[in-house]
C-alpha cells in the first residue's frame, strides 16, 4: 500500500474529493475514513476509492500539508456523526426503554436508550451510547460530567 506523499487532493465541481496519485492517475469520489475514530482519531486515516478499495494510507493527519488536511477533515466532518454528550438533563425512566434529554456538542437532543447493554464502556471513563436509531453518542470522560448527569447515568451502569 502506498503511503508516499506524492499525491494531490482536490474537490471537484460535484463536491467529491478527487485524488491524483504519484503516477497521475485520477481517482474521483474518494472517501476518507478514520481507522481509530474513538481511541486515536488523528492516527491512521485511509482514503478509499469508489470501489471500496484502499488508495492511500495516511499514518498521521497532522503530517499532511495544511490544505490537504483541511480537505480531508472537512470531508470527515461531513460523514462522521458522533455527538458528544456534555450533560444529561433528564431521563424519562430508570427502566429501559428510556428517553433521555441530553446536551451534546452539537446541540440539545433526545435519545432513546433501548437497553442498558447499549451503553458500552470503551475505556475506563469513555462510554459509547448507541440510541434506538443507531446514532452513537460519546461520553468522552465520565468523571468530567456534572454531578446531576453522573447520578442519572449511574442508575444505568
Amino acid at each position, binding site marked *: 500500500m502506498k503511503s508516499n506523499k506524492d499525491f494531490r487532493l482536490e474537490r471537484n465541481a460535484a463536491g467529491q474529493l478527487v485524488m491524483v496519485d504519484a503516477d497521475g492517475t485520477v481517482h474521483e469520489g474518494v472517501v476518507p475514513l478514520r481507522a481509530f475514530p474513538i*481511541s486515536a482519531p488523528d492516527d491512521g486515516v485511509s482514503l478509499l476509492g469508489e470501489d471500496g478499495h*484502499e488508495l492511500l494510507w495516511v499514518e498521521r493527519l497532522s503530517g499532511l500539508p495544511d490544505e490537504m488536511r483541511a480537505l480531508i477533515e472537512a470531508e470527515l466532518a461531513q460523514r462522521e456523526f458522533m455527538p458528544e454528550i456534555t450533560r444529561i438533563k433528564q431521563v424519562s425512566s430508570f427502566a429501559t426503554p428510556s428517553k433521555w434529554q441530553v446536551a451534546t456538542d452539537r446541540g440539545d437532543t433526545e435519545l432513546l436508550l433501548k437497553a442498558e447493554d447499549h451503553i458500552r464502556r*470503551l475505556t475506563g471513563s469513555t462510554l459509547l451510547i448507541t440510541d434506538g436509531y443507531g446514532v452513537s453518542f460519546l461520553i468522552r470522560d465520565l468523571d468530567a460530567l456534572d454531578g446531576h448527569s453522573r447520578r442519572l447515568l449511574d442508575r444505568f451502569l
Partner: protein
Amino acid sequence: MDVSTISPPSSDSPIPDAWHQVLQARLADRERIHAWFETDLDDRLSFSKGLLLVTDRRVLALTAAGQGCSEHRLAAGQTLRQQDHAGIGSIGLFDGGTRLGCWRYTMAHGADATRFVRQFEQALNGLQGAHPAGVAQPRLCPLCLAPLAPDQEECAYCDIEAEAPPSSWVLLRLWRFARPYRWQLLAGFLLMLASTAATLVPPYLSMPLMDDVLIPFENGKPINVDMVELLLGGLLLSALLAWALGWAKTYILALVSERIGTDLRTITYDHLLHLSLEYFGGKRTGDLMARIGSESDRICLFLSLHLLDFATDVLMILMTAVILFTIDPWLALVTLLPLPLIAWMIHQVRHRLSTGFEKVDRVWSQVSNILADTIPGIRVVKAFAQEKRESGRFRQVNQHNLAVNDRINRIWSLFSPSVTLLTEIGLLVVWAFGIWQVTHNRISVGVLTAFLAYISRFYTRLDSMSRIVSVTQKTASGAKRIFDILDRVSSVPEPAKPQHLERIEGRIDIRDAGFRYGNRAVIRNFNLSIAPGEMIGLVGHSGSGKSTLVNLLCRFYDVSEGAISIDGVNIRSLPIAEYRSNIGLVLQEPFLFFGSIAENIAYGKPHATRTEIVAAARAAHAHEFILRLPHGYDSLVGERGQGLSGGERQRISIARALLIDPRILILDEATASVDTETEKEIQRALDNLVRGRTTIAIAHRLSTLHKADRLVVLDRGEIVEMGSHEELMGKEGAYFRLYQAQARNVDTDLDDQNGSPPQTAKESAA
C-alpha cells in the same frame, strides 16, 4: 524354589500371597520369575483372578485357585501384544502370526499390563543375550497410564471425586484465604466480645430496678429518684455502647469477609484458567460459572452474616450462662435444661440436611446448565422447531428441583417450629420453677424478671442459631465445590526446571507419541519430523486424530507416551506460556472477545502499536472491511463477533495470529466453515501467514492443502501414508481414495478441484 523369594527383580510389588502355594507346585527348581501380572477376567469375561508369569524359560498362565494352567516355552520372535477396547484390555502372546494365548483384564490394571509387556520384552532380550536397557520409567497413573510428573501425587485425569457428603470441616480450609486478614479478624472478635457483653447489661440492671424501686413502691415507699436516674442512665449508656460496638464489629467483619470472597473468586478463576483443556472438556460452562460466581458469594455471605451471628450467639449463651449461675445456680440449672435436647435435635437434622443440600445444589446447576446449553444453541433449537421440547426439558428439571426442595423443606419446616415450641416450654418451666422459688422466698421478684429477660433473649437466639445448621451445610458444600477446582492439578504441569529457547527455529520432532483419552487410544506410535518452515497437511477422516495431534502440539494435553520436541528440546521442559507464544493457532470457529476489533487483533500481544495492528490486518486482508465498519478498528464486536460474517471473523483471527509473528502455525480447519468465495479470500490471507513458518494445517477439503510440502494421512491415530500430493496420488492408497471421494462430490468442491467454473459462468453471463 523358596516362595519368599518370589519377587521378580524388576517389579515393585510382591506377588499376592494367595498364589504362593500354587506357584510352589508349578515352578521348577531354580526357575526365576521375571515378571508377573494378575488378570481379573477370564475367557468369558467373568470376573475371576488369574496370574500371568514370565520366568527365565517360559510364559505361565494360571487361572483362579490354580485349577487351570497353560504354559508356553519362551522363544525368540515371540511378542506380547496389548490391546484395549471399552475398558477391557487384553494381552496376546504371538509367535509370528499365530496366537498362542490371550488373557484379559479390566483397565484398572492397565498400567500393570504395560509394565508386564515391557518386562516380557526385557526377559526375551535377556534370553537372546542382550542386556535389558536400564531406562528409567516415569511413574504412570495406575488408571489411565498417563505419566505422572515427579511432583504430582495423583493423576489429574482420574482423580475421582469423593462421593461422601462434605463435612463442615472443609470450611476450615477457608483459613488459607482468611489468613491475610487475621488482625482485622481479631479486632472484629474483640469488638464482638465487647458488644455482646454490652447487650447483657440491661437485664442485669432490671434486677435492682424491680427489687429496690418498684416493689418497695408497691409496698408504699416513695420512689428513690436518684437511683432511678442512675439505673435508667445505665440502661441508656449500655444501649448506646452496644449500638456503637455492634456497628464497628459488623462493619469490620463484613469488610473482611467481602475481601475474602473476592480473593476466593480471583484465585479460583486464576487456577481454573491454568487448568488443561481436559478439565474444561469434562465440565459444563454453567456449572463452572455457578461455582465461581454464586458459591463464592454464598461463602462470603456465610462469613459476614451467619457465622458472625452464630459466634455472637454462642458468646451470648456462654456469658448469659455465667451470669445466671452467679445469680442463682438452681434456677440457672432449670433454665439451661432444654439446651441439650435442642442440641440433639439440631444434630439429627444436620445429618439429614447435609446430603439434601448437596442434591439441591446439583439440581440447581442442572437448571443453569440447561440455560447455558440452550441459549447459545438457540438457532439449532429454532431451526428444528424444538422450542417445546426444550421448554419441556427445562420444566422437567425445574420440577425435579421442586421435588428435591420439597423433600428438604419437609424436614426443614418442622425444624423451626419445634425449636420455638421448646423455647416456649423452656420459658414455662422457668416461670413455674421461679414462682415456686419466689413463694418460698428463695429469690426475689427482681431475680425472676431478670432471668426471664435473659432467657427470652437466650431462647430467641437458640432459634436463630438453629439456622446455622443448614447454612453451614450449604456453605460447606459450596466450599467443597470450589476446593474441587483449587485442588485440581493441571494435567499439563509447568516444568520444575524450565529450559528457555532464545529463538525458535521451528523444527518439530514427534517420537513414538501416544495419547489416550480415558481408556481410548487416540494417537498411537506416532513418529513425524517437521523441518523449519515446512508446511505439513494433515489429512484423514474425522476421528482419525488430527485435532488431537494439534492439541498435543499446542500442549493443551500432554502425550501419554513418547515425546514431542521443538528444536530438539522436549516441549514439556519449556514454560507453557513461553512455548505457546511461539504458536499461532487459527481455528475453525474463530472466537472474538467482547471488545474492539483492534483489541481482538492485539489479543496475543496487548501492547502492539496501532501501526502493527493495521499491518497485521492488511496482511490478513481484513483492513478494508474493517475500515468500512462504523467505527473502524474501534468497532465493538460481541461475544461471538456478532455483526461480522464467518469469513470476516476468520480474517480477524488470522490477523491475530499474524501479529504475534509465531514460528509455528497451526491451522485447524481454518477455512471449513465458509463458502468457497470467502475461502479464496482467506486462503490469500493464509498464504501471507504461512510464509516462512513451520505450518501444520488440517483441512477437510484436500484442495486447500495444495501448498503443503508434505501430506500426512492419518487413520485411527496412526500415519498410514506420507508424501507430496503427486506421490500419494501415484500410490493409489488411502489419500487417493479420499481425493477421489471428494472429487466425486462435485456440488461442493467443483470449484476447488479444477479451476474456477463459477467465475467463468459469471463472465459468460455478463
